[in-house]
């Protein structure tokens, strides 16, 4: 039903398309370094950010990305909306679709929610995280940050460490990194490493934290208490921190650390490391906005007509 292109899973994008988006992100980063950080590119376009699940980083970064492109941006949060009155996902989407938005950015706690939503609207749909399933713009911003910091993606080895089971960041990241020619490992306690990961995602898997030695980048995953229900996945956070927590003591010279936030300091990452330049956390946040600008711009433009040069001339002309 969706007439426009959507971004539901990172696997929807080819290597070339990802590269184009990252290049576009770099162009927008240049714009962001100017005094006036707003371009008129998406004037007259409407973007609705629909968040059924709480978010700080992703929500603000999508909002700012839309506003800096001069789009009209509306934020709808599930709390305080008709969702609390029992409205179904379908009815919420149909209601918002009646305003003829150009893009719906959706976050939801259930896997498959964004795919379901896309069946009820002609707007382009962007997945801002659906349950444990996918978070494609997070993957793009991670690629962006890595390319900028490490100078390459091809041949890079990234080890995701910790709560892989509940992590859409690890899943989208693994798909995206491998698309770009990087190597990916999942290193996790046996109870938090989904069965079938190696076969299903083509990643190297290990229970041994010492295996991060081979990685260029260690990606610490947040322990997602809120998705653990009654818990019991690890005996205690203390034991988890001892066995898998990332700190300077585990890293070798030159290794970099990433985290998608919010961080549980002292659990998956030590306080000292979180504040150290070795960690790319702030760079990730910065990358988030420009990459989301690129995604929004790309979805609202004719894909064949867009080249980085055109974007800039468009901006300058405007």
């Amino acid at each position: 039903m969706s007439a426009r292109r959507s971004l539901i899973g990172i696997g929807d994008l080819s290597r070339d398309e990802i590269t184009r988006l990252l290049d576009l992100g770099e162009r927008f980063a240049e714009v962001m370094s100017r005094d006036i950080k707003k371009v008129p590119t998406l004037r007259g376009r409407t973007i609705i950010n629909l968040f059924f699940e709480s978010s700080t980083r992703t929500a603000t970064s999508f909002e700012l990305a839309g506003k800096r492109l001069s789009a009209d941006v509306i934020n709808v949060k599930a709390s305080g909306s008709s969702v609390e009155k029992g409205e179904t996902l379908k009815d919420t989407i149909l209601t918002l679709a009646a305003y003829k938005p150009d893009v719906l950015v959706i976050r939801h706690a259930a896997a498959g929610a964004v795919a379901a939503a896309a069946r009820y609207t002609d707007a382009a749909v962007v997945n801002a995280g659906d349950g444990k399933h996918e978070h494609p713009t997070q993957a793009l911003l991670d690629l962006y940050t890595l390319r900028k910091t490490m100078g390459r993606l091809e041949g890079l080895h990234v080890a995701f460490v910790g709560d892989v089971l509940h992590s859409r960041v690890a899943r989208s990241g693994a798909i995206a990194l491998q698309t770009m020619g990087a190597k990916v490992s999942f290193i996790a306690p046996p109870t938090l490493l989904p069965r079938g990961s190696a076969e299903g995602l083509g990643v190297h898997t290990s229970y041994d934290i010492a295996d991060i030695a081979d990685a260029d980048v260690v990606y610490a995953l947040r322990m997602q208490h809120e998705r653990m229900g009654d818990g019991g996945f690890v005996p205690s956070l203390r034991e988890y921190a001892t066995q898998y927590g990332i700190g300077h003591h585990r890293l070798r010279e030159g290794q970099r650390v990433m985290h998608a936030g919010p961080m549980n300091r002292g659990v998956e990452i030590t306080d000292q490391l979180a504040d150290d330049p070795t960690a790319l956390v702030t760079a990730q946040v910065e990358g988030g906005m420009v990459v989301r600008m690129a995604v929004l711009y790309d979805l609202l433009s004719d894909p064949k007509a867009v080249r980085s040069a055109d974007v800039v001339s468009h901006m300058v002309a405007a």
Partner: protein
Amino acid sequence: MNRDIVLVQRPGPTASVVVRNARLLDPAAGIDRTGDLVVRDGRIGGDPKGLPEIDGDGLVVVPGFVDPHVHLRTPGREDTEDIGSGSRAAAAGGYVAIAAMPNTDPPVDDAQDLVRLRELAADEAVIGVGFICAITKGQRGSELTEAAELAELGAVALSDDGHPVGNAAVFRRALQYQHLAHLPLTLHEEDVDLSAGGAMHEGAVSARLGVGGIPAVSESVAVARDVALAGYEGARIHICHVSALETVEEVRLGKARGIHVTAEVTPHHLLLIDEDCEDLDPATRKMNPPLRGTNDRDALLAALVDGTLDCIATDHAPHGASEKELPFEEAPFGVTGLETAFASLYTYLVVPGKLPLEVLVQRMSADAARVLDLPVPTLADGAPANLTVLDLGATWVVGADGFQSKSRNSAFLGARLTGRVQLTIAGGQLAWQR
């Protein structure tokens, strides 16, 4: 106990017809020949003179199908299915008898519920409909239902389908009590602690999609327990919708040890796998047990052919559109199946030569009847007419002409299938004609 009363059908005029020069195929009775099939006053055989005729060229007449496992959503969700619509869907799929599960709202767990449903069926059912009653009151898993009385009133079997009896001691008492009530126990096998939070088969695809996994062992450990207990108590059990290779092995082991265990398999588990869930469309791909891997699917087919799995059941599970318009992880489990069972299996297994037609017909008819001690449909002379006329050359698109069922959550929605039911005579009455 009188097994002749368990099926209820709306009374009506008896059918009389002659199918000329058709293939008559009744594997269980050893019949396979070309000739005329006469139905006179609702019985097979008799004088064909003066009866309406059907040209049987290209048609196959088989004993009517029997489904030991359907959901008619009555009482409680008559908006998604009722006895009339469910029985018409069954007739359109070639079925002459179906057994309805008791996980309704409220569950069918006492004499009053059963009698009321049988009265409704006597008004609405176009084929034979039997009712399975709960093993435990409210399907809560603690107190046994009054099985002896339910048996006298015509219950087909007992099942806590959808809510497996978790407490092994309670389940053991249900097996012991079977020696008094003589009702088959038909079991949805699932360790709900192991499957908690799951929405699809646990494996490479669930790992990739990030959808909660339902491990194959959540089924097989429950089967292992129940087969062991059935052996210990000398009782008989029937395993519903086997989905996993590990479960096939448990059933095979139980049979080899002489334990009275039978088992069923659904068309969707024989034909689809977890990789078919990529689109995360719950209407057509979310069911419990879930679609599993290629190894599982292949093991199910082999077990169906060798008889480890006794029969086909659809687990026909209608859901309203709005229930299935939810995100994959939030939508309810279940797909419909009565109207597509034969054609889907014929198209994807018989036509490519993976399953002989004779075996399919027997597994959908005589073998399915036997697992619940239902009357075995047959083309033998003098028997009540319970038969289906199939056009194996016809192709059709699932859903293109709508459904007899009130719901359309078919796993084969939009598929082009070969083989269509032309005519169904159930209990001697015309139940379906295309």
